[in-house]
């Protein structure tokens, strides 16, 4: 739903760093998306093609690095990976858990040509 504003943020950060490096062209945008992050990458791609047009980011590939959701059980201390949705600890059934990874939504890096 809010992928347009998110895509604008990606473009702004990428352009900012590309300019600092005196890049002539940006070829790749590398994004970390956690499993718990509610971002639809197809929509980001859709908006990207529109908003990156006529900038040095035009035509840049969007690479999505998916980070699995991982939890830590605060009762039995075991770590476990998330299935299709968050669930209780598979070892002891506790709901007393905390998120270790999966909430990321970061611009990891860009690839540029000078």
């Amino acid at each position, binding site marked *: *739903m809010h992928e347009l504003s998110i895509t604008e943020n990606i473009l702004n950060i990428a352009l900012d760093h590309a300019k600092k490096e005196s890049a002539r062209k940006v070829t790749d945008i590398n994004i970390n998306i956690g499993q718990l992050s509610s971002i639809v990458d197809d929509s980001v791609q859709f908006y990207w093609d529109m908003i990156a047009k006529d900038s040095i980011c035009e035509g840049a590939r969007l690479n999505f690095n998916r980070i699995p959701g991982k939890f830590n059980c605060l009762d039995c201390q075991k770590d476990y990976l998330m299935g299709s949705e*968050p669930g209780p600890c598979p070892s002891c059934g506790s709901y007393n858990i905390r998120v270790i990874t999966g909430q990321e*939504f970061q611009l*990891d*890096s860009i690839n540029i040509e000078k």
Partner: protein
Amino acid sequence: MPNEKVNILKNILSANDQLAIQNRQILDQHDIFGINIMASPGAGKTSVILKTLNFLEGIACVGVIEGDTAPVTIDADKVNALGAPAIQINTGGNCHLDSVMIESAIKHLPLDELNLIIVENVGNLVCPSSFDLGTHARVLIASIPEGDDKPYKYPGMYRGADVVILNKIDLLPYVDFNEEYFRKGIELLNPGVLIFPLSCKTGEGFSPWISWIKSRLSNNK
């Protein structure tokens, strides 16, 4: 053509988050507690705000920021009718409020006179959870008719909430709503979060919610 990798590792919403921090500093400088109310359309955000204003009359000086996607002032008008200052933000179709919108809205509120600002976000259980506005607490309103499975279906929203209000409990006799299943879903995502079951229709359950707000208010005004 040589290709060079530039490491960035920056949160994509960092511009919003930075401005949110500034908004929070402005509220802190004025001893104002800020609440961001989020819910799906029809959960009762405006009703909870209006009832809360009633209960806080003579206790707190409240300003309200109303977010809607369409150019209407229905909610702000209702708040103004109760004598509280209200600013209406029309997001022009956007699905959430962000910290830029709040920055411009709070400039129009009499900050020196207030000790509480309530922001009513756009009705949506997905997008608003990603955007910090610079308030101090995120309050999620769920309601009985929405169903008991919402924490499981909208984990992002439930995980980010500081307080959950369960509204329309007067409808419990008429709706199949398993409160234990609902609470378990929240506990899974957000252990220990405060849950206030209440009804705007009857006023039942408002007292603990109002006490919680009062405990957060500055006594300097």
